[in-house]
């Protein structure tokens, strides 16, 4: 019991993962990783060159470049999902509990998009950047 005038230090608790209830698939919950200094470094390592390549390709006039840019953008989405999705609950894919890998490979696209949006928001990307 604290005495009068005594300062009580409360222990700060921090969860490095955020749980989100899916809006597109009620009953499904997913856990996404919150950004940290180390996780940001990891993401930069994985995305750095790909983002540079996308900028280059998008600046081109050839249709082939546009296609290649779209392919590279899909790869960025896959990396974001792999990096940011910690787990899914309440969903089975082909009779097995869903994981980040099975969601990417065979899961419902609307859910993948919803998770991706949540991850990108966690990364601090603006709405315009999220659309790219």
């Amino acid at each position, binding site marked *: 019991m604290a005495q009068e005038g005594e300062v009580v230090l409360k222990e700060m608790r921090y969860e490095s993962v955020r749980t989100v209830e899916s809006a597109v698939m009620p009953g499904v919950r997913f856990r996404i990783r919150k950004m940290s*200094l*180390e996780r*940001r*470094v*990891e993401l*930069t*390592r*994985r*995305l*750095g*060159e*790909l983002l*540079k*390549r996308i*900028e*280059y390709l*998008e*600046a*081109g006039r050839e249709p082939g470049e546009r296609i290649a840019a779209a392919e590279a953008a899909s790869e960025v989405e896959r990396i974001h999902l792999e990096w940011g999705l910690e787990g899914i609950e309440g969903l089975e894919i082909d009779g097995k509990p869903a994981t980040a890998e099975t969601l990417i490979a065979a899961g419902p696209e609307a859910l993948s998009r919803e998770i991706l949006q949540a991850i990108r928001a966690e990364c601090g990307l603006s709405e315009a950047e999220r659309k790219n």
Partner: protein
Amino acid sequence: MRAERGRTKKLILAFHFQFADQAGWKCEECRRSGLEEKRRCALRPGAEPEPSRVVWVRNGAVAERCPKSLITGESLALIEAYCAWKLNGGGDYRDMPVREVEAFWVLEQELRKEMERRGDE
């Protein structure tokens, strides 16, 4: 050994490039103005070997191709890790992977150069 030197060179390049005016190195404007050949962009597919020449210099960092196109994700990640390390007060390097220690040592030298340069201005 050569690959290591190449990695260090790219790291130094990435470090100094972040202090440069980024506006002039946006791919869209560069390609629209037809500068990608002149700047020897490393992202150009099937780029033939051309005689090397300096296209960018800053504080001792020299690029013979578009600096932006040469910067690797690994270099950017090391710079971010270095900034985080500095932000945390520069913790004990003995607990860090050797590769990171080497990179941070290089970045410390380059930061010193940058500070000296700014002091001279």
